[in-house]
């Protein structure tokens, strides 16, 4: 197992280097002078050249490349123009919020996806199967940002102002305006309520995909001989499905974890923007409109590295549950 782990980790290193390279070349190929952001027309050419030299822009490409690689790998991404703080600092401030949101969505999506897919497979071709199939395909084809807006419209606006439901959910931010004045219990409730709509809109699209995959995986397992043997032994159907079949059907679903991380992080960018959630995604979008390039570069590097980490985790998990993989 240790050998397998080391091999996978070693495989991830060139990937991270490659990502840093791609980010570097995107910036380098960009038209215009990166220093123009801090230069102003009143400067003499000597001062402007001095500024460029300060940023290392007077050096040839290969020197800059090596320097960028060194800096990126040690976490030195420079200073953000808008926050006037080291970029790494800014990103680390917003990272926990993104992890909270995407973590909740991931757990929710896998729980419901696995459950729905199992029910569909066990009751293949039933009304439930067909109904859920249509529903999942519908949600699967939906842009998450639009789903978020529709949820706001229904559960935040109509529920509160038109239908006067006793419960409705806030549409933006992580906390209410009067958060500071709430009791501890009410603070927790307030935070949870703010979490509901973003999590649901992020999770629903993934749930649909996972349910579709899970249905196929479960259908394949349920036809196998050992399931028939379990039934023949006279085991109750529930034990057969949940203990014998489900465990084996779950193995390929683990690969989905790696597959869905890019989807998840792309989703957080939209959802954080729609719900004004102070996370990495919203910071990234704001940084684009403010032309804060160091922040954009570091943010995308961060997201990509997080995907690599997630894939690594999925690979290791797969090896844990399926010994054949690690002995290959």
């Amino acid at each position, binding site marked *: 197992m240790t050998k397998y782990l080391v091999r996978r980790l070693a495989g991830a290193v060139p990937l991270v280097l490659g990502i840093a390279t791609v980010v570097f070349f995107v910036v380098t190929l960009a038209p215009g002078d990166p220093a123009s952001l801090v230069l102003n027309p009143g400067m003499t050419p000597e001062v402007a050249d001095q500024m460029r030299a300060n940023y290392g822009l007077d050096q040839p490409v290969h020197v800059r490349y090596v320097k960028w690689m060194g800096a990126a790998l040690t976490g030195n991404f420079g200073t953000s123009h808008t926050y006037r703080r080291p970029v790494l600092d800014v990103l680390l401030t917003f990272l926990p919020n993104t992890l909270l949101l995407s973590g909740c969505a991931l757990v929710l999506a896998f729980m419901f996806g696995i459950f729905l897919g199992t029910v569909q497979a066990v009751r293949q071709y039933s009304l439930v199967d067909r109904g859920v199939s249509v529903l999942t*395909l519908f949600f699967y*084809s939906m842009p998450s*940002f639009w789903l978020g*807006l529709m949820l706001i419209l229904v559960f935040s606006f109509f529920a509160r102002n038109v239908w006067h439901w006793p419960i409705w959910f806030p549409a933006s931010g992580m906390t209410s305006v009067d958060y500071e004045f709430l009791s501890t219990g009410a603070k927790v409730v307030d935070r949870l309520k703010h979490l509901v709509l973003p999590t649901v809109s992020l999770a629903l699209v993934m749930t649909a995909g996972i349910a579709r995959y899970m249905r196929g995986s479960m259908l394949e397992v349920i036809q196998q001989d050992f399931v028939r043997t379990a039934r023949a032994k006279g085991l109750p159907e529930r034990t057969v499905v949940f203990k014998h079949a489900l465990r084996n059907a779950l193995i390929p679903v683990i690969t989905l974890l790696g597959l869905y991380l*890019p989807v998840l992080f792309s989703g957080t960018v939209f959802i954080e923007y729609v719900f004004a959630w102070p996370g990495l995604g919203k910071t990234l979008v704001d940084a684009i409109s403010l032309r804060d390039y160091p922040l*954009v570069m570091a943010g*995308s590097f961060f997201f990509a590295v997080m995907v690599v980490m997630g894939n690594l985790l999925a690979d290791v998990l797969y090896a844990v549950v399926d010994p054949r993989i690690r002995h290959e």
Partner: protein
Amino acid sequence: MSDAGRETALAAGPERPVRVRGWPWLSHVLPGAPQLLAGRWGSGGAALLVWLGLLWVALRDVSAFGSALGGPADARLAVLIVVVSLTVAWTWSWRDVRRGVGPGQPGTSQWDSMARSFARNRTAVAALMVVFGMYLLALVAPLVSPFDPTAQGDLVNERLLAPSGLHLLGTDQYARDVFSRLLYGARVSMTIGLVAVGIAVTLGTVLGAIAGYLGGWVDSVIMRFVDTLIAFPRLVLLITIVAVFEPGVLLITVVLGLTLWPRTARIVRGEVLSLREREFIQAARALGYSKWRIIFRHLIPNALGPVIVAATLGIGDTIVLEAGLSFLGIGVQPPMPSWGTMVDDGRLHLLNAWWLSTFAGFAIVLTVLSFNLVGDGLRDALDPRTRP
């Protein structure tokens, strides 16, 4: 072929029995109707829908249709599309009836059996018709849309009007007709989807096949590059690139295509790896064919099935992604209408004008859903295990 010959050929086929029913002359007035009556609802329905729909477009306002000929290029193109489609629908139905309504001689190639299997999947065929209908609608948009999509109306009296008979889906914050904007938005979104996937499929297929067939260091270099690009969440890579360049339709399309090809390359490489060991490739090699001829003439055509499935599903993904970029304000730039921009416009007026975001979103969902259904149908049709 003589009539007797056709009879035996048809009798030998495994398909449904031939029933020439109804009135063949019906094809002169209602192309597709005889086929529909004969039970070929897919092709018959499509022909009939195209015929009736486009005839309505042309006859609804004949003078406008005529004057469009002297109008701008896209209006002239729309007229041309209408005329050509009407002719094609009519001619096809008429010739088909003359041949005898019913399935022709069943083909035996891989593509024929795939087409037959696909045609049995009613949901997928219906979805394919929706897709074609959307493209047709997008092409004839200048003739169908009731208003100019970019012209601002009366900002005092016509701003944010609710859906009504005049403005089918209401008006937006600049008093522009939402329905017209949806139609023109379809052009932008669906063209970007098609072109971007075209770029991705071409690049991915060629590079994937080269990597798979040549192996060695070529394979390593291409696949390491593919791994790196796949590790990026596609949206984040797009954001990074668009952030440092100027956003615009051309850039978005190219970049969407350039970020999708690694997936195709992976699929093709996998296919080629298994194909290259097969006898027909060995035979081609033994005949002394060059490696490029083997790659382009023997390997790629045989690896195309899964690529087509992935491409169909990829168009849906790409349309969502383009809408997402436009939604974030870094995709298609105003005043050009795009579904993503329209959802974003509606975001700011969500509580007092719900129709802005809602209908644009429905358009995205309908399109993407259709592409996904077609893709699923193609996958099932290609998979011999699911063929009866």
